[in-house]
C-alpha cells in the first residue's frame, strides 16, 4: 500500500490521539527513511501549509479529541495528502458525520479535488453523495459490479433494477410477459418486451413520470384516495387495482383529481425487467 502511494482516509478518522493535529499531518513525512526525509523545518512548514489548505490554520497544536468530527476528517485528509499520494482512497469518509456537515464537506471536497487534481476513489453508500461528487460511478451490490457509468448514464440508462431503484426513487408494477406482450391486470401495456422471456416481469418508473391523463403505455386506471393541496398544485394519492402501493402524483388537474373518482394514468420513461433473471428490455412510454 505505502509503495503505491495511496492516500487513505478512514471512516472513523483513525487519527493518532496522542499526537497533535500538526504532528498527525506530519507523520507520513517524519517516518520516511532519513535520506528522503525533508528537514525538520520543511516538515513543519508543509504541515502548516496543509493545515491552511484544509482550513484549520491555527489548530495545529490541538489534539484530535479537541476537534469536531468534520474538523477531524479534514485533518485525516491533510494527513493523507502530506505523503503526496498518486491516488486518494476515501472509505466512507463522511459516514460518521451528521447530515449538515456531510453536505458542507461534500462541497468542500469537490473544491479540494479541483485544486489537487488527484484521482480519487470515494466509497460511499449514500447515492446522492456518489452522484454529486463522481465523474464515474461504480454501483456494487453484494460484491458484484452492477454498472459502471457516469451519473447521467446511471440515471437515464440503468443496467439493472437494482441500479434503477438505488439511484433514485422507483416504483415497480408487477406484470406478465407473453409472446412479446406485456400484460398488467388483464390489459396489455404498450411496452416493447422483445428481449424478455415469457413469465413474470416488472415495469419500473419514477414518481415524476406519472401523470393524470389517458394514453401513455396503456390504459391503467387508478382511484383517487386522497387529495392534498401543495404550493404548486395538488398531490393525489392514487391506488391501482392489482398493485399494493399507493402512488403519489403531483398534478394541477383539479377536475381529474376528485376524491374517489377513477382516473386514467399515463406513465412515461418506463423500463421493464424480467423478474426471473433481471434481463434488460427497453420500453419507451409515450
Amino acid at each position, binding site marked *: 500500500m*505505502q509503495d503505491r502511494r495511496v492516500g487513505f482516509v*478512514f471512516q472513523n478518522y483513525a487519527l493518532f490521539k*496522542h499526537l497533535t493535529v500538526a504532528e498527525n499531518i506530519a507523520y*507520513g513525512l517524519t*517516518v520516511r527513511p532519513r535520506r528522503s526525509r525533508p528537514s525538520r523545518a520543511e516538515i513543519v512548514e508543509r504541515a502548516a501549509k496543509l493545515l491552511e489548505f484544509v482550513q484549520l490554520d491555527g489548530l495545529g497544536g490541538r489534539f484530535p*479529541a479537541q476537534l469536531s468530527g468534520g474538523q477531524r476528517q479534514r485533518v485525516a485528509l491533510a494527513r*493523507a495528502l502530506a505523503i503526496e499520494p498518486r491516488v486518494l482512497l476515501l472509505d466512507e469518509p463522511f459516514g460518521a458525520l451528521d447530515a449538515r456537515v456531510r453536505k458542507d464537506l461534500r462541497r468542500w471536497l469537490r473544491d479540494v479535488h479541483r485544486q489537487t487534481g488527484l484521482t480519487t476513489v470515494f466509497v460511499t453508500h449514500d447515492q446522492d453523495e456518489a452522484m454529486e461528487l463522481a465523474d464515474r460511478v461504480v454501483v456494487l451490490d453484494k460484491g458484484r459490479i452492477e454498472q459502471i457509468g457516469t451519473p447521467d448514464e446511471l440515471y437515464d440508462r440503468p443496467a439493472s433494477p437494482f441500479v434503477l431503484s438505488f439511484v433514485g426513487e422507483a416504483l415497480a408494477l408487477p406484470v406478465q410477459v407473453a409472446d412479446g406482450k406485456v400484460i398488467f391486470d388483464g390489459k396489455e401495456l404498450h411496452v416493447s418486451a422483445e428481449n424478455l422471456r415469457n413469465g413474470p416481469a416488472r415495469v419500473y418508473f419514477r414518481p415524476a413520470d406519472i401523470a393524470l391523463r389517458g394514453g401513455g403505455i396503456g390504459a391503467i386506471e387508478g382511484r383517487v384516495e386522497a387529495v392534498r393541496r401543495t404550493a404548486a398544485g395538488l398531490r393525489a394519492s392514487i391506488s391501482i387495482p392489482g398493485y399494493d402501493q399507493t402512488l403519489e402524483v403531483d398534478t394541477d388537474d383539479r377536475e381529474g383529481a376528485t376524491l374517489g373518482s377513477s382516473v386514467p394514468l399515463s406513465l412515461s420513461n418506463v423500463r421493464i425487467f424480467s423478474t426471473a433473471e433481471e434481463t434488460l428490455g427497453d420500453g419507451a412510454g409515450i
Partner: protein
Amino acid sequence: MADSTSVVKKTARSFPAPSVIPGFAPTFGLTILYLGLIVLFPLSLLVLRASELGLSGLYSVATEPRVAAALRTSFFISFAAAAIDVVFGLVVAWVLTRYEFPGRRFLDAIVDLPFALPTAVAGIALAALYAPNGWLGAPLAEYDVKIAFTRWGILIALVFVGLPFVVRTVQPLLAEIDAELEEASATLGASRAQTVWRVLLPPLLPALLTGFALAFARSVGEYGSVIFIAGNLAYISEIAPLLIIVKLEQFDYAGATGIATIMLAISFAVLLAINLIQAWSQKRFGHV
C-alpha cells in the same frame, strides 16, 4: 428526605467547586472513612511507635550499615524487577490480546497464578529450581553461575510476583487499540517497527507506569517468596522486610518500626513520583 438533601448541599458547598455530579458528599465521606480506617490508621500507629526513637534514633537506624544495605538491596532490586516486568509484561499482554491461538485462555489464566499462590510456596519452588542441585541451578552451576542464595535469586522472585500487575494493567488498553490506527500508519509509509514505536506504544505509557508502580510497590513489601531463595546473607542478599522480622524476634519493636517507617517514606516518595510522571504522560498521551 428534604432535610438530608439540604445537609448534603450545605456540606458540598463548603468544598471549593465540587463536581456537578450528585453524591459527592456521601461518597467522599465514605472514601475518607475507609482510607482512614483501613490504610491510614494502622500506618499512623506504625509511625507513632517509631516516633519513640525520635528523629535522631530514626537516623541512626537508617544509617546502621546492615539496615542501609538491606534498604538498598530492597529498593534497587525491586526497581530492577519492576522494570523487567514492564518489558516482559507488555510482551505477554501483547501476545495474549493481539493473537488468537489455541490455549490462549489457559495462558491468560496462568498469568494470575503469582497472585493466587502463597508467596512462600513460590519462594520454595524457585529456590528448589535454582539451587545448585536444582533443575535450572545445576546446569547453570557448571558455568559458575549462581542464582539461588544471591541477589539474582531475589530479582527472579520479585520478577515472578510482579508480572501479573503489568500484564493486567496493560491488557485492557491493548485490547482497545483500533486496527485502523495501524493501517493508517502503514498507508502513510511507516514501517512495522515505526508503527509499534510511534503509534501503538505511546498511548500505553500511562498504563505501563501504573503497572510499574504496582509491581514495584509489591516487590518492596515482598517477603515470603524472597527469603527462601535469597540466602539472606547480611550486607549482600538481605532484604529490609526480613530485617524487620529479625528485629521483631529480638523484641526490638522500635527498631523494627523504624525500618518500616523509613521504607514507608521511601515507597511513598517513589510512588508519588511515579504518579506525577503518570499524570504528565496522561496529559501528553492519554487523549481519548
